[in-house]
C-alpha cells in the first residue's frame, strides 16, 4: 500500500471534480422578473423598467414571459428546493395564491413594510399580502370584472347598448339565444376546465369557497349554488362555444366567434390587441344573480409583485417597485390607456386617463365605469386553498352538464374540498 501509487489517482479525481464545480459569476444589477401575459403584465413591466432605467441607467431588466401556471409551478419548485439561484428577483403572484406562498414558505419573500407606504393602496389588496403584521409584495392590478360585448353582433340581433346595462343572468341567456338565432354567433366562450366564471358569479353575491374564518363553505353556499345553476342554464341553452384551455378560450373572442366576454379588466389588453375590431366593443357591468346580496360587480384574479428574500439584487428590486408602482401616478395613466390595467394605487384614480373616453370602445368612458364597479366588489376571504376548491368545481362541471342535480354536485365538491384541505 504505497501512498505514492494512489496519489496521482486522487489528484485526477479531484481535478475532474473541481472542473465540474466551476461556476460563473452572476451579472451585476440585472433584475430578473417572472410574469405571464405578454399583452398585459409583461408589457407593463417593460414600461415600468424603461421608466426606472431613465433615472438609474446602471440597472437593467430581464423580463421572462411564462404561462401563469408555469410561473406558479416554477416558483413553487424553486422555493421547495431552497436554492435562490433558480429564482428570479421579482415574481408576479395572483392574489388567490399569495397567502399560500407566504404561509408555506416562511422567509422566502422580502417584507416591504418599512419601505413602502401602504396607506396609498386599496386596503383589501394590502390585507391579501399581510402575514403576522408584516406586509410583503407590491400591490398591483385589480381584477374587477366587466361584460365586454360586440356591439355589431348585438345590434344585428336587435339590441342596443342600453339593453346590456344592469341585466340578470336569465336575461343574458335570453339575449344569447336571440343573438345566436339572428347572427349564428355564440354568446360566449366557456372552458369547462376553468372555474373562473363560477368564481366571478359567486363573488358577485358576496360569497367564496371559504368563510371569513377560512373554513370550507360549499353545501350551504347559496351564491355557489346559484352560480352553478347559472352555468347549468348556459350549458342547457347551448349559447356557448366550448374551449379547451386558456388560449383556446381567448381564441373564441379574438377570432370574432362569440358576442361577449365576461372576465377581469386585465383582458382589455388582449381584446384591444385586435385592431380590426376597434369600435366594435362595448363594456357593461356583469349580469347579476337573482338572490340576496347579488351585485353587478365582481373580481377575477388580480395580482401583485413580490421580491424574493434570497435575491442578489434585492435592494434594487425593492427600490424599483417602490419608485414606479407606489409613487408614479403618471405610470398608472399610461398602463391604463395602453393595457387596461386598473391599478390598486388609490392616487392613480385621480389621474386624467381615468376620465378619458376610449376609441376602441366606441368612445365610452370605460375606465370611469371600471373604477366605479371596483368600489362595489363584495369583499371575501380567498383563504389558502382556492386552487384545490377550483379543481373540485371543474371536476364536477361535466356531471352538471349531464343533468346531475346541483345539490349532489355541491356534496361532491364538498367531499373533495374537505379531503384536500388539511
Amino acid at each position, binding site marked *: 500500500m504505497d501512498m505514492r501509487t494512489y496519489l496521482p489517482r486522487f489528484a485526477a479525481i479531484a481535478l475532474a471534480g473541481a472542473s465540474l464545480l466551476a461556476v460563473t459569476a452572476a451579472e451585476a444589477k440585472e433584475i430578473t422578473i417572472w410574469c405571464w401575459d405578454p399583452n398585459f403584465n409583461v408589457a407593463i413591466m417593460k414600461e415600468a423598467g424603461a421608466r426606472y432605467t431613465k433615472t438609474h441607467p446602471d440597472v437593467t431588466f430581464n423580463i421572462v414571459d411564462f404561462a401563469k*401556471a408555469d410561473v406558479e409551478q416554477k416558483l413553487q419548485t424553486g422555493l*421547495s428546493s431552497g436554492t435562490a439561484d433558480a429564482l428570479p428577483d421579482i415574481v408576479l403572484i395572483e392574489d388567490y395564491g399569495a397567502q399560500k406562498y407566504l404561509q408555506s414558505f416562511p422567509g422566502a419573500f422580502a417584507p416591504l413594510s418599512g419601505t413602502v407606504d401602504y396607506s396609498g393602496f386599496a386596503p383589501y389588496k394590502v390585507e391579501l399580502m399581510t402575514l403576522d403584521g408584516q406586509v410583503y409584495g407590491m400591490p398591483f392590478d385589480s381584477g374587477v370584472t366587466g361584460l365586454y360585448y360586440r356591439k355589431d353582433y348585438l345590434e344585428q340581433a336587435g339590441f342596443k347598448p342600453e339593453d346590456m346595462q344592469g341585466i340578470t343572468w336569465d336575461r343574458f341567456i335570453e339575449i344569447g339565444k336571440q343573438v345566436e338565432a339572428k347572427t349564428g354567433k355564440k354568446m360566449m366562450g366557456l372552458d369547462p376546465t376553468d372555474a373562473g366564471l363560477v368564481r366571478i358569479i359567486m363573488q358577485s353575491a358576496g360569497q367564496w369557497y371559504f368563510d371569513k374564518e377560512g373554513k370550507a363553505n360549499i353545501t350551504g353556499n347559496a351564491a355557489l349554488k346559484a352560480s352553478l345553476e347559472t352555468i347549468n342554464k348556459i350549458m342547457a341553452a347551448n349559447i356557448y362555444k*366550448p374551449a379547451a384551455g386558456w388560449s383556446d378560450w381567448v381564441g373564441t373572442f379574438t377570432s370574432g366567434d362569440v358576442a361577449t366576454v365576461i372576465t377581469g379588466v386585465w383582458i382589455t389588453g388582449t381584446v384591444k390587441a385586435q385592431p380590426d375590431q376597434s369600435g366594435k366593443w362595448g363594456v357593461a357591468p356583469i349580469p347579476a344573480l337573482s338572490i340576496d346580496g347579488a351585485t353587478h360587480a365582481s373580481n377575477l384574479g388580480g395580482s401583485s409583485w413580490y421580491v424574493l428574500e434570497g435575491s442578489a439584487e434585492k435592494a434594487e428590486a425593492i427600490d424599483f417597485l417602490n419608485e414606479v408602482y407606489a409613487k408614479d401616478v403618471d405610470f398608472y395613466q399610461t398602463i391604463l390607456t395602453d393595457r387596461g390595467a386598473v391599478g390598486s394605487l388609490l392616487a392613480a384614480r385621480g389621474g386624467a386617463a381615468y376620465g378619458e373616453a376610449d376609441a376602441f370602445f366606441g368612445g365610452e368612458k370605460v375606465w370611469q365605469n371600471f373604477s366605479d364597479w371596483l368600489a362595489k366588489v363584495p369583499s371575501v376571504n380567498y383563504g389558502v386553498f382556492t386552487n384545490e376548491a377550483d379543481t373540485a368545481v371543474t371536476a*364536477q362541471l361535466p356531471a352538471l352538464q349531464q343533468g346531475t342535480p346541483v345539490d349532489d354536485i355541491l356534496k361532491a365538491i364538498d367531499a373533495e374540498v374537505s379531503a*384536500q384541505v*388539511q
Partner: protein
Amino acid sequence: MALARRGGIGRYYNVNGWLFVAPALGLIALFMIYPIVWSLWMSFQSGRGMMLKFAGFANIVRLWNDPVFIKALTNTLTYFVVQVPIMILLALILASLLNNPKLVGRGFFRTAIFLPCVTSLVAYSVLFKGMFALDGIVNSTLEAIGLIASPIPWLTHPFWAKTLVIIAITWRWTGYNMIFYLAAMQNIDKSIYEVARIDGVPAWARFTHITIPLLKPVILFTTIISTIGTIQLFDEVYNLTEGKGGPSNATLTLSLYIYNLTFRFMPNFGYAATVSYVIVVLVALLACLQFFAARERDR
C-alpha cells in the same frame, strides 16, 4: 488456490476496484438511495410547504378518504388494463408482419412505426391536442368520411379525453415494443418454421404456437417495462390537459396528482411522498404478478 483467492474474498481488498466504482457508487448513493430513504421518511410527515411535522400514519389514512386519489388510482389502472394489452398485441402483430422478408419497403415501415417514440413528448402532445381539437383534422376527417355526425369532444368530455390519452400513448410506444419483438423474432431458428410449414401448420397457428411461446421472455420484459411506464404516466396527460388532468379529473394519473400536490396546490410534500410510494408498491406488485404468470411450468 491463487485463482480462488483472486476470484473470491480477495476481490474485496482490491483498492483499485473500489476506486473504479467509487464515483458511480457515490452518485447512486447521493441521487438514488438518499432520495428514496428521505422520501420514505417524508411520507410520514405532513404540513404546509416547508412546515412539515411528523404525522405517523395520517397520510395513509388520508389516502382512503381522498376521492381525488381514488379517482387517480382508478384512472391509472384503467390506462394500464386497457392500454398495455392493446399495445402489446398490436406490437406483436406489427412485428410479425414486418418480419416477413417478402414485404416490400419493410425498412421504411419499421422506421415509420418506431419513429414516434423518439419524438419529443411535448411536441407530440401539442400536436395531438391540435389534431384532436373540436374543429381539428381528426374530427373533420371522420366527419368527411361519414363516420360521425357531430364532432367528438376529445378534450372536453371525460370518456373521450381518456380515450385520447390511450390513443396517444399507444401511438407513441407501440413501435418501441415492436422493435424488441422484431429483434427476438430474428433470433428464432428459421428451420422451426420450415418444419411447421412442411407439416402443414397454418400461419396463425405458427404465430400462436411457435412465435409467441418463443418470445415469452421478451414479452415478459416489454410487459413489465410498459407496466412501469403506464403506472408512471405523466407527460401526455400533463400536456394534453394543461396540467389539470381534466375534464372532471377523468385523465388524472397518480403521477400528475403527485405533481399537483407538490407544485400546484398548497404544497404537501409528505402526502405527495405517500402517494408516490403507492406507485412503488403498485409497480412492485404488478411486476411480481407478471413474473409469476410467466414462470416456467414445464420442469
